[in-house]
């Protein structure tokens, strides 16, 4: 709590490195509203979180189901999927920066073979933004995968066997059994991932540095540049307070929304088991 209060107080001053300390009240916050660069970074952060989490959740879930259904090569596949998550961030930045480079990058070799002109990935605002989403997905899908896969392994088998006996299709089994039973693990994964995504910093810092023209900047990056590069500590502190409050409010709202599901959580598995028991108890294993 102490550092939070410290930052809060700092955000109400115009303190800067080597400057004098003066009380400015809420001026910093009013200034933020008119700061186009900050507003842009703030909106970008939301877009990153939304796009990144949605893509990573579905891809991670898909991969977890796919790997779970494999009969051979499971271990190798899991290792391969988890690889991106183990790379040190600096090297992630370097590798992807060269990947996207229009002169010596592997992607440019691919476009040359396909006879598409060189794509300037990091110079076009929209493409640069897409690149960051791609790298983010590459790096963080393993996180989703690991949580969801462990969640899959702990599900009871009986409901699935019962559904198979009843002749349910894979599609129905997924929507009626797997997905609802995975909701608790999904909530945990999505919440943790969103919180981390709001702090997105390192890959943007290494790959684009926020450019071109602030198109890929995030709120954390903007706060860092303001506070530590320009030395404007008070203003930078105000930025991080705004981001902090946003995440607190959003995750509280999210938790309130999912609370009903949370309370149903222990019931989901049990209800499925009871249903199975009922089906098993009827002669000839239920309807046939």
């Amino acid at each position, binding site marked *: 709590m102490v550092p939070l209060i410290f930052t809060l107080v700092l955000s109400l001053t115009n303190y800067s490195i080597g400057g004098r300390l003066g009380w400015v009240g809420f001026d910093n916050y009013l200034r933020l509203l008119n700061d186009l660069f900050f507003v842009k970074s703030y909106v970008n952060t939301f877009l990153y979180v939304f796009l990144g989490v949605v893509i990573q959740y579905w891809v991670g879930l898909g991969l977890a189901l*796919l790997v779970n259904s494999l009969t051979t090569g499971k271990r190798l596949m899991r290792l391969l999927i*988890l690889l991106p998550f*183990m790379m040190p961030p*600096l*090297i992630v930045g*370097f590798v992807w920066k060269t990947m996207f480079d229009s002169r010596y990058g592997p992607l440019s070799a691919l476009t040359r073979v396909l006879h598409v002109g060189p794509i300037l990935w990091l110079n076009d605002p929209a493409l640069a933004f897409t690149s960051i989403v791609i790298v983010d997905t590459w790096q963080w899908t393993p996180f989703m995968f690991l949580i969801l896969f462990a969640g899959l392994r702990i599900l009871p088998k009986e409901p699935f066997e019962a559904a198979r006996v009843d002749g349910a299709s894979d599609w129905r089994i997924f929507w009626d059994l797997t997905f609802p039973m995975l909701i608790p693990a999904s909530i*945990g994964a999505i919440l943790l991932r969103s919180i981390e995504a709001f702090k997105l910093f390192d890959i943007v810092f290494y790959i684009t540095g926020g450019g071109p023209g602030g198109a890929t900047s995030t709120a954390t990056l903007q706060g860092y540049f303001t506070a530590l590069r320009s030395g404007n500590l008070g203003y930078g502190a105000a930025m991080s307070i705004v981001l*902090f409050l946003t995440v607190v409010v959003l995750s509280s709202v999210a*938790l309130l929304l999912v609370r009903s599901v949370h309370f149903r959580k222990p019931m989901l598995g049990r209800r499925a*088991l009871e249903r199975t028991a009922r089906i098993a108890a009827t002669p000839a294993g239920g309807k046939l």
Partner: protein
Amino acid sequence: MTTGAKMAESSSTTARRRNIFGSTRLVRIGLLFVWGLFAGFPCYWMAVTAFKQQRDIYRGPYFVPFLDFTPTTRAWEFMMGPAREDVLRGLVNSLLFAGVSSFFAVVLGAFAAYGLARYQYRYGPYRNNDIAFLIVSQRIMPPIVAVIALFAMFKTVNLIDTPIGMIIAYTWFNLPLTVFLLTDFMNRIPIEIEQAAAIDGYGKGAQIWKVVLPLTMPGLAAAYLLSFFFAWNDFILALMLTFRTSVTLPIVITNMSAQMEPRWWLISAVGIVAIIPPILAVVVLDRFIERQVLHGGMR
């Protein structure tokens, strides 16, 4: 007549299903292959870069050693020679901090999660879900803000730049994650299994040790791996809290890039070294994630 028709119908549906299943199998393998390529190629690129010279890195995409560029072992010689002490120290420190702190984070997290899953708490307006949220909310704080406080605290108790201090810091850093994840897993275990164990004469400790922990094994292993990865790749805590004796590998790598021209061949070579311990951790813990014990345990 009806039975005959039904039988014919059912056999045709099974045949059709098998057919669809066969083709979906191919699709599945194809999808996994595509993702494997996407996930693995940058890693391959890092591995190849470690054998290039600086000019080969900047002259064009060279993919295969011996075919389009001559590999050198210069990076490896440099790492075994002048940079050996730094890399070795970083490696040992990172291994120690990540391994031990993740262990503590998972053990403490498992106890907290068990409590949150099995008992109803009430502290003023706070119920179980609120407590879980409070614990997670610690992760929301921008790390820079939290690290300044840690620095001040560690300074007063002389823990800066010590292994114990770093282990405490990473345990603190990963605990919210493990508590939150494991609460979900603990919740999923039917209480009837524990009651059955109690009837069989197990005490509370034995129930947890022999029944609950083995059943949550996939969750425990996943939580350990995640904590390990986070501690392994952490940059900001190590940057603020270490100076010389307990620097971690990411700091060593960053120091290498801080020189005039980043020597990417060397950094990639250290990157390969840095990726080996997490791979070993996955290989060791994989069997526990795989384990599916909640099968036929309850009737």
